């Protein structure tokens, strides 16, 4: 917490003042990074919510080429009726039963309890409508892919990838220290705050170059047309139903990344971080040890 409390309010950059040290403001995120970031955020939100709508059309997951009611199930979310006639939401994961009434399997929609996998507040549209869910999903899937390709190419040619994202040898050597810093919620200051730290680099690389492409490829594998064009996809993901399951799980990992990302933004100073992703300008947290030898 000391790291957070020591941050002064955001001030515009100005000439150094020995009485009240002004914070240095740098241009941190270039325009294309900012545009791609927000477009990506929008796409992922719509894709998640419409994806859960699509999942709700058949709220079970399987492995292999095929899967339907009589197949072994990895995950199910259904409403069940008890002997006394009560309705309950039941989720099973690898056969383990968990009652999830109100959230998974059985939840409220416009004042009524309804049988659905994910609740109305997280699906797009909120009511059960597979056709409309697919409409949103495919439009934003194309936008997401175009944005991702544009960003990927730009990163490569502008050297954003090699300069800012790929960890240096020193980064890798210091990974243990970085892990400890993260656990202690110690955020980099001064010069160190001007660049992405090693865990940040690795997290971004894994999300952008592993998880997001996996989403596209497993999504493609669910298309019967693309399975004809690229049967290798079925080999890679062990069938259409496996691809559907992987698509669901990787979406979960992206949500996990999002949660950690937001927590880090809040811990590092939400307004400064948010501003840096909107205007590009980032106030560098002062390094008190460097400023003040007695500190």
């Amino acid at each position, binding site marked *: 917490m000391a790291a*957070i*409390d020591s*941050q002064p*309010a955001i001030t515009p950059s100005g000439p150094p003042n020995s009485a009240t040290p002004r914070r240095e403001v740098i241009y941190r995120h270039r325009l294309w990074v900012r545009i791609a970031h927000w477009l990506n955020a929008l796409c992922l*939100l*719509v894709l998640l*919510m419409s994806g859960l709508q*699509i*999942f709700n*059309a*058949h709220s*079970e997951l*399987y492995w292999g*080429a*095929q*899967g*339907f*009611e*009589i197949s072994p199930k990895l995950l199910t979310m259904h409403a069940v009726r008890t002997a006394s006639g009560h309705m309950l939401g039941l989720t099973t994961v690898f056969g383990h039963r968990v009652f999830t009434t109100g959230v998974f399997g059985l939840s409220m929609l416009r004042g009524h309890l309804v049988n659905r996998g994910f609740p109305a*507040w997280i699906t*797009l*549209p*909120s*009511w059960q*409508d*597979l*056709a*409309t869910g*697919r*409409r*949103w999903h*495919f*439009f934003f*899937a*194309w936008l997401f892919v175009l944005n991702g390709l544009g960003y990927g190419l730009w990163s490569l040619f502008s050297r954003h990838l090699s300069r800012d994202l790929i960890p240096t040898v020193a980064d890798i050597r210091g990974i243990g220290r970085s892990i400890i810093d993260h656990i202690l919620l110690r955020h980099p200051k001064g010069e160190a705050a001007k660049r992405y730290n090693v865990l940040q680099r690795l997290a971004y690389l894994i999300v952008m170059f592993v998880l997001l492409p996996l989403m596209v490829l497993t999504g493609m594998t*669910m*298309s*019967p*047309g*693309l*399975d*004809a*064009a690229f*049967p290798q996809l*079925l080999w890679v993901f062990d069938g*259409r*139903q496996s691809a*559907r399951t992987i698509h669901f799980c990787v979406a979960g990992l992206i949500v996990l990344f999002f949660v950690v990302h937001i927590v880090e933004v*809040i811990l590092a*100073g*939400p*307004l400064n971080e*948010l501003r840096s992703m909107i205007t590009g300008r980032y106030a560098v947290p002062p390094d008190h040890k460097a400023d003040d030898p007695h500190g």
Partner: protein
Amino acid sequence: MADLISRRSALIGGVGAGGLLLSGCDQLSHSPSVKRVLDTAAVVNYRAQRLLLTDKGPLAPEFKPADIAPTFRVNGSAYPGTDDYKRLMDANFSTYRLVVEGLVHHPLSFSLDDLRKLPSRTQITRHDCVEGWSCIGQWTGVQLGLLLKAAGLAPGAAYVVFRCADDMGGGNLYYESVDLADAFHPQTILSYALNGQPLPVAHGAPIRLRVERQLGYKQAKYVMRLQVTDSFARIAGGKGGYWEDQGYAWYAGI
């Protein structure tokens, strides 16, 4: 302290924005102009897949006999309750005639026996429902392209519409349509057998379309009539199929 407040207001702002976004998206889902914009993706899906998938190929993946599901899952109608269909069924489909008409040089009509005597194709394929499940079965039937060649397509022919016997409510009979690339694809068959047995009523007896590079709702059951046309805009809801008229994409390769 200022930071704490800003953090709290950022959180509250985030949650509020989320709520607004939710109700906003629901409003947008109803808007016809938003639908039109979103539907550009359906056109792009179709164009992109047509670059990859033609009447010549590639084939949808085919499976081994060991992969066939123990029971094939029923989708859509399981029994068309109309009087006309009941009479056909009572006669064990001996009075059934598949009619090929529309933009063809020679309108044709086939009995079930006629179709069985034509060269057949047997394929073990995966049926993918738009809802998300998949089921593998073996289908035997006559290639649609063979019948269309026999009838001879007239100029302007662009789609084959499948008129079916199942009443979806209020006298709306099921129908579907495909373009010529799918119509002439080698795996596009009018099937009369599932897993080596005559096609059961629950699976579309006597004839069910198999168009293997598309989703389940394109696999029209109880096919009675093939109508070759330049446009499906004047048929039923005008979107090319029963589910298409309910809002689903006409091209269902994805």
